[in-house]
Each structure stands twice: as C-alpha cells, then as structure tokens.
C-alpha cells in the first residue's frame, strides 16, 4: 500500500527514531521526516517525549494533550497526493495510568496507587520507569493492528488510528542508548512477571529491522564526534543504526575553485569591482574588501565542514544533507526540508 517502498532506503522500517546532539536541529529533522513519510495517503505519527511541546510550536498549534491529534498534511508526492501527520506528546504520568488501565484493569487500585504517591514515585524517582513508559507508548502505536479495530477502547470516543510509520523525536545522542535500552535494563531487573514480558516485547521491536535509529549532526567537530560515538554505542547495544542527517549545511554560493581563491587571497578586486558596478551596486574598494573578508570567513568554515563531511562519510551509512535556511523554520520550510529528504531517498 505504500507508494514507492522500493525507492526509499528504509522500506521495512515502521519506527524511525531520530536522535542528535543538542543544537543540531533533531526535532526539526524529525518533523521534516514525518512530513516526508506522510505522502501518498500514508498516516504518520510524530511523537515527542521530552515535555517541551516543540511539535506544537513548530506547527503553530495549541499545546498537545496526551492524545493523538492530526496536525497537518504531509508533503505531497509527484501526483500531489499527501497523507496525514498526527502528533502525540507522551508524558510518563498519563502513559502509566493508561498502561495500568489497559493491561491490568486496575480500577480502584489505580486510584489508590496515585493516593499513595506510587505514580509520582514511579515516574520521577524509580529508576528507568519513566523511559520504559515512554518507549512503551511508542511501541503500542507502532504495534497497533493496522486494520480498524472494533474492540471498544474504554472511555474513549474515537476510532483507533493506525499508522504506516511512527517517527520518534528521541532524547539526545548522549542518552539514546540508555533511553532505548532501558527496557533491557528493566527486563534484567525484573526476572519474571508481566513487566518483564512487556519490556522484552518492546526491546524486540527496538532491536528489529522494523526500527531505524537516525542520527542528526552538523558539520562541526564535537557533534560529528558524538555521532560517531553514538553509532558505535548503538552497534554495541544491538540497536539498528539508520542514516545520518547532516543538518544546517552552509549555502553553496561558491564553487570549489572560487573557495580556494578566496581563502588564498587570490581574487582580483578590480574584476569584482567592475562586476559589481555592472550590477548597479554603488561600489567602492571598502565594499569589495568587506565582501571578500566575509567570503574568507565562509571559506574557512566550508573547509572545516569538508573535513567533517569526510569523517561522516567514513561511517559508511546512508547520509542526507539539509541546508541551513536563513529564514528560519516555519511550516513552508519544513515542507521544503521534507521534499529534500524524499529526493535523497530517506522517505
């Protein structure tokens, strides 16, 4: 039912986990990927787990409740057919109450747990429970039977939505293995019992080829290093490494030879002066010098970017590049980024 599953790099993947160092724009990339996947009538769920309401801000909608909301249409395909993007803000308290109600039919006991401070304990103090609940909810959305399920969802008056793909805006690279691996920690802690079997099932999905963990980076030393460390750590943890999204790439206004000339101070200012006056710019030597100085800063940065790009390429993973947009990120910009991800085969 997917339009061109063979044309993307991730045909069998249902859960796309997007991580990245702080400041690399991982939430933007997660949103763009959700838009990119939501084409040709496909439904995509975009989840956030860090309590920041970043999705609501990006798409300019009211803060999201613990409920799946349709927030926008996806990026249209060649025939102009889009799909739907839903969003879900997962908070651990709601996830725990839902979990207890769903699997244990606790009723009175659920309320008693709250009264005794167990809910607060479980979601803030108890080790790892928070992450288990967050990943557990994502698991539920991915595993949901795809055909409309008639079983009444107690207390809720809506149809169960099913998704072709789920995108998780995950915690940063430094914490990703801990976050995704928390279920195996818990499964180790609890040797038997229902929590263990639930944790085992979540781990099975996260380690399967139906999951891909993508890493977002920018072409600077520290983020690239952290990406390499993250990839190695994911491999060690047996988690499926996806692609690398290189974000915020500087504009390619100058070609390679022009960059060399600018960097080595070999540009003839008189040629620039005459070009500029031909373009009706009010030109003087000062302006030309300033433009060349600015271009040299840029050329130095581009050289550093190229060095880092070589390191990213050495990871030998599918790599996608997204430009730094001078206008900032709004809905139009997200669609533009989504189309770029699509043309590069990420979705």
């Amino acid at each position, binding site marked *: 039912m997917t339009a061109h599953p063979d044309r993307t790099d991730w045909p069998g993947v249902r859960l796309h986990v997007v991580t990245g160092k*702080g*400041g690399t724009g991982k939430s933007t990339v997660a949103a763009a990927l959700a838009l990119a996947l939501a084409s040709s009538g496909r439904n995509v769920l975009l989840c956030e787990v*860090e*309590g920041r309401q970043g999705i609501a801000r990006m798409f300019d909608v009211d803060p999201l409740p613990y409920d799946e909301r349709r927030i926008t249409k996806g990026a249209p395909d060649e025939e102009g057919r889009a799909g739907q993007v839903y969003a879900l803000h997962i908070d651990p308290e709601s996830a725990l109450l839902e979990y*207890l109600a769903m699997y*244990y039919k*606790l009723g009175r*006991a*659920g309320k*008693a*747990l709250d*009264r*005794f*401070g*167990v809910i607060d304990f479980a979601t*803030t*103090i108890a*080790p*790892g429970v*928070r992450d288990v609940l967050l990943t557990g909810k994502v698991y539920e959305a991915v595993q949901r039977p795809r055909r409309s399920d008639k079983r009444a969802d107690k207390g809720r008056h809506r149809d169960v939505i099913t998704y072709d793909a789920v995108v998780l805006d995950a915690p940063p690279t*430094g*914490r990703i293995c*801990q976050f995704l691996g*928390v279920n195996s*920690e818990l499964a180790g*802690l*609890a040797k*038997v*019992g*229902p*929590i263990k079997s639930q944790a085992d099932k979540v781990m099975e999905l996260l380690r399967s080829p139906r999951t891909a963990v993508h890493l977002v980076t920018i072409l600077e*030393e520290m983020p690239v*290093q952290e990406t390499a460390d993250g990839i190695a750590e994911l491999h060690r943890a047996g988690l499926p490494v996806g692609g690398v999204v290189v974000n915020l790439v500087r*504009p390619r*206004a*100058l*070609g390679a030879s*022009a960059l060399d*000339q600018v960097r080595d101070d070999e*540009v003839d200012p008189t*040629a*620039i002066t005459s*070009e500029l006056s*031909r*373009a*009706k*710019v009010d030109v003087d030597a000062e*302006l030309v010098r*300033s*433009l*060349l*100085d*600015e*271009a040299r*800063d*840029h050329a130095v*940065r581009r050289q*550093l970017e190229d060095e880092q790009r070589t390191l990213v390429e050495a990871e030998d993973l599918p790599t996608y590049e997204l430009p730094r947009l*001078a*206008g900032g990120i709004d809905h139009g910009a997200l669609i533009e980024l989504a189309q770029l991800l699509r043309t590069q085969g990420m979705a």
Partner: protein
Amino acid sequence: MKLTPMKTPRLDIDALLDDRTTEIIVCCGSGGVGKTTTSAALALRAAERGRKVVVLTIDPARRLAQSMGIERLDNTPRPVSDVDSSAGGSLDAMMLDMKRTFDEVVESQASAEKARQILENPFYIALSSSFAGTQEYMAMEKLGQLHRQALEDGSHDLIVVDTPPSRSALDFLDAPERLSSFLDGRFIRLLLAPARGPAKLMTAGLSVVTHALTKVLGAQVLRDMQTFVAAFDTLFGGFRQRAEQTFALLQADGTAFVVVAAPEPDALREAAYFVDRLTDDEMPLAGLVVNRVSPSALTDLSAEEAIAAADRLRDSDSSSLAAGLLQLHADRVRIIERERHWRERFAASHPQVPTAVAAAMAADIHDLDGLRAIGASLAERP
C-alpha cells in the same frame, strides 16, 4: 516589523570573577549551547586572574578533556597544566563520576555491613548507574563536597560547575522537597511495612496497593525494592539533610547562576525557562551568556540589494564570483538579523537580566588558547 533595539544591562564577567565573595558559579542551559566550554572558559579566566579555581564538568568533549588533562573519570580534581599562574591563581578540573559519587555517599553514611547490602542491591545498582535524574543530584552532591573541602583546607576559592544537558538540570532544586514528601509519604511506609510489622496491621488500602504492585512489577521486583528501601531507610534522613544544605548553599550570596544559550529560538526559550525558574526559587542569578553569536556584517549593504544585484549578475553569467559574494553577504545579514530578533525577544520579556555575548569562533574549541579566546570575548566591553 522590527522591535526597537533595547538596552540590556551588560553582564560584567571580570567583575563577577574578580569578586572574592563569588565562591560558586553554576552554568546551566539546554544541550548543545556550549555550556561545558563556557564553564571551562570562565574557570580558566578566573584562574589566570588570580583565583584558585576548580571546574566540575559533566561530559566534556574528548579533545577538550584531553587538553585539560581529565580524560579519566576519577572524581578527583587534577591540576590543569599550562595555566598562567602569574597572578597567583590555579586551575583544577574534574569530571563527575555519578555512580562513584553515589557509592561514596552511601559508604560515608552507613556502616560497612549496611553499605555493602545497599551497594549490592539490584535496585540500587540501576538507580545509581544508568538512569536519568541521578546525574543532577550527584553533580550537586559533589558541589557540596567540594565546597566543604574548600572551606576546610582552602584548596579552592572558586568552584565552577557545569550541569547536565537537560531541562531536568534544575531538578536538583526540587530534591529536598521531593525527598521530604517521599519520606513522609505513605508509599515508603508501604514499602517498609513487611519489614516492620505483621501483615495483619496493614490497612485495606495498603493491601490493595501491594497487590497492584505485585501484579504489575512481579513479587521479586517488589521484594528488591523493599530490601533497598529498608536498607536505605536510615540513610534517607542524611540524604535529605544534605540536599537541604546544598539548596541553602545554592541560594546563598556566594553563588552565581549563569544561564547559557545560543542565539536560536529553542535555546533562548529554554534559557527563559531557566531564568524564570531560578527567579521563582530566589536563586542568585548573575545573568545570561549568549554563545556563538554570528560575527556582524562588514558592510551595510542590505540583504535585498545584494540579492537583487546577484540575480542581475547571474542573468548574464551564471558562474559569477561577485554574485556568489553578494549571496553570501545576504545570507550573513539575514542570519544576524534573525539572531538579533530572538535576542531582543528574550530581552523584551526579561529586561533586567544582564547579558554577555561570545562571538562564534571560526573553528572548534579544544585547547586552552581557544578557551582563553572565549573568555576574552565574553569579558569584552561592546
């Protein structure tokens, strides 16, 4: 429409560092804004201006850690070499070992036998080694230890602390209250119940809860938790007291919080959250550091003019070098305008917060010279 540029008070970095009553500087902010680098740069500058400084970092980039000589996670301050000590100062650095700090607290508070019981409990091992939240508490615990030690032996007169890269970095502010409500709460009594008395004394409510917990967690996890809490019971009081002491220390006049941000909407929004949170808790906020501010344009040619001219040039020559230069200039101007817009927005809602700015460096920072350059940039008068 452009906001009217407003005059924000300047954060005078050198005055802050030179003030001998400043004993602790806590750097907080969201991930990826250069918090660790800022902490290190402030610490180095203070040391070279004559302070005896120790910087506590959480997770420094490898090369930065190497250049400071703290590749190993050993919880002990190590002297940083190549610091200019002509003003009489010194710089030590250490990387936080969260688990070890936790273990040490347990060992210092409990008898050897009890400590062993706790350290071997699976619930404790999980809690102390790998889960979110512990890092924040332990960073503050270590800060308290360093401060007590500095008071005793005069080894340091300024402690600079980096905080973990998350919003929960401020969770330590809640620690005393959270511990108290937990300790005085019914849940702990519930967990302790089997250890303390016969089951028949349990109320109906308790048995419902125990039953539910057993159902969800399984009996073995509940037992591990009960053993842990029972063993930990006598320590909790000590923990609460320590958390309260650290809170008081943070609130004292000798502490200065520096909120770190980058000139981007997300980072500045997080910075606003930190500033509000610190203000609400009456914590001594020194000000805001905005890192990586793009260098200003060197000519006042507008972005629109530059783009229009570049288009004209490309119409006749698609590979025009001058067109490329104009396009780069337009891009630079737009980014600067956007950064200014976000900073003015922050200033509009927080007009009283003193601010210092560090210019973006052309290359990544991984040595003392780079840190010196950042420190100088922060201290520079505009």
